């Protein structure tokens, strides 16, 4: 009648499956926003990614005679892959990304907890390099479409990347290359003098991948996860902060403006940085376990993101930076051991013995 088991007999309310569901809940507002902005096509891409992810997981589970769908990690992977796709992508590509993520990155290495990289990121990077041109075709949100001429356009980041050496301000470059501005941003910019593109990126009226357009909603989701203690504040904060500092100090160099003149707000809010910092760089499995290790990991992510975005040939660096740091994460963990209690410096030990 009575059960006998080892202590403790109580447990914190957090559990792996619940945490995964919290992540899904935190991602949903941004995903829905993407669907509103890009229409039915975006819904389709999200659904196909999720379905293919779950199906892969289920089929592989069949092979092992176990049901791993209940940890909801495949659901998170599928959703993240979908959110990392441009809305106009052919539907085969998210399927390939999900297959690669679940089968190659996760399952072959031993399933949940054994993957060497964040599956969603690895899947995205895999299809990004396999189908580069398709993956870089972005459609403009319908709000911004004044006429039908803009079916695919550059994201603010890629437009900036092309023209950065001209030495102009980002606002000038973007309006020169014809990136549209929403009505709200235009009115705010004329009344308060804020860069309209920053407003658009923050609120989510910009072209980009389905899930990364609204920095505001991603930030809200990230704060929800921190509040629910699913992720710690360390990785997102250190990641964004280190990137911001580097961008501010060295960001202007390429445009010929010298040190400490880089523009900070627009690069932080645009592209995959928000999504990456709050949802992909904070993956439990592929990040270091000690607080010190987490900070090193996050600063590394910031550094590589900056290097790739500023000096690399790609406009986007977030997923590559995180992938790179995922691979060194076990090494960071090896060298960042926690300080054990009661192992003090020798002089203090002597003092204790004397007393």
């Amino acid at each position, binding site marked *: 009648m009575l059960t006998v088991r080892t202590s403790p007999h109580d447990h914190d309310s957090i559990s792996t499956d619940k945490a995964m569901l919290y992540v899904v809940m935190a991602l949903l507002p941004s995903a829905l926003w993407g669907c509103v902005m890009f229409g039915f096509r975006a819904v389709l891409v999200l659904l196909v990614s999720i379905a293919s992810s779950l199906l892969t997981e289920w089929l592989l589970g069949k092979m092992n005679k176990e049901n791993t769908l209940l940890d909801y990690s495949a659901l998170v992977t599928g959703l993240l892959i979908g959110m990392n796709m441009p809305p106009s992508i052919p539907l085969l590509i998210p399927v390939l990304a999900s297959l690669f993520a679940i089968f190659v990155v996760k399952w072959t290495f031993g399933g949940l907890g054994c993957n060497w990289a964040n599956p969603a990121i690895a899947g995205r990077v895999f299809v990004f390099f396999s189908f580069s041109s398709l993956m870089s075709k972005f459609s403009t949100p319908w709000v911004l479409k004044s006429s039908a001429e803009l079916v695919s356009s550059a994201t603010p980041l890629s437009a900036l990347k092309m023209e950065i050496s001209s030495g102009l301000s980002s606002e000038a470059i973007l309006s020169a290359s014809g990136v549209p501005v929403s009505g709200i941003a235009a009115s705010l910019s004329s009344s308060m003098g804020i860069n309209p593109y920053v407003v658009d990126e923050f609120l989510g009226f910009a072209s980009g991948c389905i899930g990364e357009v609204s920095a505001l909603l991603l930030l809200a989701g990230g704060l929800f996860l921190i509040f629910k203690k699913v992720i710690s504040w360390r990785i997102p904060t250190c990641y964004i902060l280190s990137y911001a500092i580097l961008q501010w100090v060295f960001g202007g160099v390429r445009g010929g403006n010298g040190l400490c003149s880089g523009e900070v707000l627009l690069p932080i809010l645009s592209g995959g940085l928000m999504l990456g910092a709050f949802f992909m760089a904070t993956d*439990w499995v592929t990040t270091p376990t000690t607080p010190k290790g987490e900070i090193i990991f996050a600063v590394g992510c910031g550094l590589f993101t900056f290097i790739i975005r500023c000096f690399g040939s790609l406009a986007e660096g977030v997923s590559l930076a995180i992938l790179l740091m995922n691979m060194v994460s076990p090494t960071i963990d090896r060298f960042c051991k926690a300080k054990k209690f009661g192992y003090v410096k020798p002089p203090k030990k002597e003092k204790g013995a004397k007393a």
Partner: protein
Amino acid sequence: MLNIATFKRGGVHPDDMKRLTKDKAVERLPLPGELYVSMSQHLGAPATPLKAKGDRVEKGEVIGKASSFISADVHSPVSGSVVDVRKVRLATGANADTLVIKPDQEQPDSFKTAFDWRSQSKEEIQALVKEMGIVGMGGATFPTSVKFSVPTGKKVEYLVINGVECEPYITCDYRLMLENTDDLLEGAMIAAKAVEPEKIVIGIEMNKMDAAERLDKRAKELGYPIEIQPLKMKYPQGDEKQLLKAVTGREIPSGKLPLDIGCIVCNTATTYAIFEAVKYHKPLFERRITVSGECINEPKNILAPIGTPFSSLIEYCGGMKDGVYELVSGGPMMGFDVPDESVPMVKGSGGLLALPDKKKGLTFPCVSCGKCVQHCPMGLMPNRMFRNIKNGNYAEAMALGLMDCKECGCCSFSCPSHIDLVQGFKLGKKMGRKK
């Protein structure tokens, strides 16, 4: 009483659940029909029984003699007769000789004469503590006389009275602090006389601020040089390592004792037992215990003799509700499950909890979230130690600091994958020692 201290590294915040019994005054249990007084009431060697089947015992009489240096005398809690001597398994798993005592209908009203301890010497007080079978009543049951025998050349700077009671549910120490404030403070003074510390501090967590204020007020009125140190709520602050870190800022080096950093820690219940032993020459044969949990009909704080079977306590508390999953002796974080209700109380039993299944949830593989690492108060890496133990690599686990683990349960408590880390460490220690 101004600054609020705590230890820095690790720790968890379980729901303290003290509301169930916080306001229940301690009640004396009516004598049960039979008492099962085990000879293994303490850490160390079990006592040698002095009585056989059919013998008469008097209340407070020595019935078990300490068999080595780390051991303690056992006294009869009642006057009565020994019905049987047999092996009985305790909550901790110890299987020791146990005297089954049938109490008389009429019990003597002894141990009421007060003795003047102030005129006694340090050695006399220490001898009384040993004679009266005092052990640490916080759960570890380390013989207090051994703790108090300070080797020559060592100086005690701090005597820390542990009123933290960080285990959820348990409130018997809190009630003791509220109901027997003056006696407890006198007990601290007696202990201070025995070990001659430079400073006496009582550490209390913030959820017991009324007790802290009361102790502070009375200590000032009585003119005792006792300091009250409020502590932030955090488990496992009641562990002497964390408590000393919080109160004195010192860390006990790995494998050493509090005395090595000039401190002695004494639990509240123990301090009260010292008071009774030295002032009234009353041996340790009864204690306060909290009977609580979601599945107890009327949670209570009870004063019961040692050897009371848990069934009597549960009966006195109105029985158990349906849906009880486990019966825990001690607190929910470090207590031991008992297989049935016949298990008797010992000197270290501070709680008896009837709990529903609070660990419900699916078990997943380790996702290296690092929660165990970040919550470990000893700064260990439970995930790595566990992986090594699972693979049979006990030597590597020991190298990672397995022996510093005190099984406080912070890692298992916070593990989102519901991995039984503590169970692994208990096994790992046994296997590691073997080699």
